[in-house]
């Protein structure tokens, strides 16, 4: 009897699902979007999702799709929860005439879970600036693309900046660097690299975890008040960032000695912290602002016609721009793949080839309206990061101002670690380590 209701429910569900499959246009490229517009991480999830949605819409409105193939998209709310993310992935992966082109989970936890599933389904993951650092090595992990850089690149860039500020790597000797991190795979990713750097340059790394969702940090900042580290690296997400800034102000820790990762440097992190955020620095993969050529198009084709996803004033925040950049990667990957496979809707496997051969030199970016918004990026099969550079910017109370030039992460340190970790991963999972040489 237990199963009566169960099967009854499934029968109903199955019927509803079957009825729901709408007639699909055949000439469409489906790009799904895993978003979180609710929950403790929504302040950061919303602008990113808006950026992705706006840019995909812009490509349809302005260019009529990618070489005539319209983009269709659908959002699925994950709430940053891994199990819901997996459900969304299963829900969306088969939609559209050729299935999902790629997934952008915007969550390290969901990226980890999906990495187990995408090789079987042959759908690539675009985890730009997050996810498993090992996935920088395409030889072992061909399906995951941390374009723009991994967390290890981020940690290295942050330390390079600090070294420059104190006057050279040798001056770091004996200094104390505290890592205040979100206690999840996301926050823990940079630890191995920081420890390796700490050993090499003889500085102390102090690890201070903050439990999910990060609104309770009193104890962490009392420790900081006691130990007075020379620098604090903030590896937070969502409400954790603004809370950290307020707590730092409460213990009078100088904000300009705090450097956030590129996920902890958005307007939604600093504005709620008000004056406490002034002077805070963060890594930047892209600038803030809505005065780039692509924004002019977004305003012209979407917001002037009132079909934009959000409010006009929300266009151009750091994470909105990053969403636009992510959507650009997705669209250009499809375009690249179309060059090889023809101007028709492509499968995930074909889009993967497009990501692997994604090449956006300066003149191409200029043509696309991304000049100044994005560095030239070139992905290869070996190196999925496509150039790992970031700048540091500082919150002046109103906006983010750049305080450094582009800093390149030291590949002599990061790359061997990525390759070693990838090798270990391959060993655990029994994977080949030469995916690039085969194809």
């Amino acid at each position, binding site marked *: *009897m*237990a*199963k*009566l*209701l*169960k*099967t009854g*429910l*499934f029968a109903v*569900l*199955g019927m*509803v*699902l079957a*009825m*729901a499959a709408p007639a699909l246009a055949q000439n469409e490229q489906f790009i799904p979007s895993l*978003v979180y*517009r*609710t929950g403790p991480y*929504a302040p950061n999830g*919303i602008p990113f*999702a808006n950026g992705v949605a706006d840019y995909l819409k812009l490509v349809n409105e302005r260019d009529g799709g990618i070489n005539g193939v319209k983009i269709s998209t659908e*959002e*699925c*709310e994950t*709430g940053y929860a*891994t*199990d819901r993310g*997996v*459900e969304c992935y*299963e*829900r969306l992966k*088969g939609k559209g005439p050729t299935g999902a082109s790629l997934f952008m989970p915007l969550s*390290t*936890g969901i990226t*980890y*879970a999906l*990495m*187990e*599933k995408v090789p*079987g389904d042959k759908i690539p993951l675009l985890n730009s600036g997050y996810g*498993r650092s090992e996935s920088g090595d395409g030889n072992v992990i061909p399906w995951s693309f941390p374009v723009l850089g991994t967390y290890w690149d981020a940690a290295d860039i942050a330390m390079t900046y600090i070294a420059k500020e104190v006057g050279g790597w040798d001056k770091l000797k004996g200094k104390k660097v505290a890592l205040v991190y979100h*206690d*999840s*795979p*996301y926050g*823990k*990713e940079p*630890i*191995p690299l920081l420890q390796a750097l700490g050993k090499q340059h003889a500085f102390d790394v102090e690890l201070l*975890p903050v439990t*999910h969702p990060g609104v309770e940090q009193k104890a962490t900042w009392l420790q900081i008040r006691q130990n007075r580290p020379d620098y604090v690296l903030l590896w937070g997400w969502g409400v954790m960032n603004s809370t950290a800034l307020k707590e730092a102000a409460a213990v009078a820790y100088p904000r300009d000695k705090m450097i956030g990762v590129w996920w902890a440097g958005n307007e939604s992190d600093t504005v709620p912290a008000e004056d406490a955020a002034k002077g805070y620095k963060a890594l930047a993969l892209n600038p803030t602002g809505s005065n780039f050529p692509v924004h002019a198009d977004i305003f012209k084709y979407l917001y002037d016609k009132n079909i934009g996803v959000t409010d006009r004033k929300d266009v151009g925040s750091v994470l909105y721009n990053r969403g636009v950049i992510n959507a650009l990667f997705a669209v250009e990957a499809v375009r690249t793949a179309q060059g090889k496979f023809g101007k028709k809707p492509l499968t995930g496997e074909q889009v993967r080839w497009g990501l692997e051969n994604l090449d956006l030199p300066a003149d191409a970016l200029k043509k696309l309206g991304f000049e100044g918004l994005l560095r030239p990026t070139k992905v290869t099969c070996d190196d999925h990061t496509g150039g790992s550079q970031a700048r540091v910017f500082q919150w002046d109370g109103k906006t983010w101002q750049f305080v450094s030039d582009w800093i390149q992460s030291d590949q002599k340190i990061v790359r061997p670690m990525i390759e070693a*970790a990838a090798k270990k991963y391959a060993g*655990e*999972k*029994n994977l080949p380590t030469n995916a690039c040489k085969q194809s």
Partner: protein
Amino acid sequence: MIYREAGQFRTSYAADQALFPIRQDRLFVWAVIIFAFLFVPFLASEYLLRAILIPFVILAIAAIGLNILVGYCGQISLGSAAFMAVGAYASYDIAIHIPGLNLIVVFVLGGVCAAAAGVLFGLPSLRIKGYYLAVATLAAQFFFDWLFIRIPWFTNYAPSGSVSAPTLRIFGMRFDTPAGRYIFCLAILAVVALAAKNLVRGRFGRMWMAIRDMDIAAEIIGIRPLQAKLSAFALSSFVIGVSGALWAFVHLGSWEPLAFSIDRSFELLFMVVIGGIGSILGSFLGAAFITILPIFLNQLPGLLGIPLSTAMISHIEFMTFGALIVFFLIVEPHGLARLWAIARQKLRLWPFPH
């Protein structure tokens, strides 16, 4: 009319003590089992299997486990997710340190570890009861969260603290297809449900129920609370541990301690309360309610063709889900299983009610 037991005579003790004494029930259960095993894997789409049926089946196992403790023995526990985590991490460690070990053995050993943890954290139940015990079992939740995050040995020194399960292989067969995974979980669910159903009718079940109803009276008639309570904790945690291992290995594939957060503990407790305290059927209904309903509600506006923003759909999902919980608890405080029992009584008299 159809559901009439007139003319069905029980002529032996065995017939009288059958799990389902009424023929219609028996036939029906068999039909459902056959349908679930033989037809569903072929009929259901990959989405239905991987995103809905497998999580449902695994959480139904966990709900049965928790129902043994909460429903039959009356010991409220808020540490179920911790025992799931113990099952998952113990299985992971066993599987990577003893490669080639049969996966079923791995899961059983994982369950045994969870049972040990359950007994340990069940000890306070000998002294404290009710709400106080619930708070004491919270300790398990926080302790194991801490353990698996802080002690790198448990996660095989994974730098990020996230581990991924080895390939599923049993007797040389790979369980990689959604249908294969579903059947594997379903088989375990069937065994667990059958065992639990029998157990609660036997000596142990009676012991637990006596303790639940009045522990002093139970003690006077010769039931040892130590044995009764700890056996309930051990068995319940064993089943929950196995379900945790399945959740990690079969459903997620790669997980972090957040997958077994306190939210999961609450979710399991709600399954038991909403499904029906002290009812195996209730565990199924509760698991279906908690796992499937939110996903269904989330898709409903899209299915009906109502254009809503993603955030709005999500808010509506939470509100409707909450309202439904309140509604069902008001309409029938004894859970969905009780609703079904009432329907069944009515059905027996249909079409000539008194």
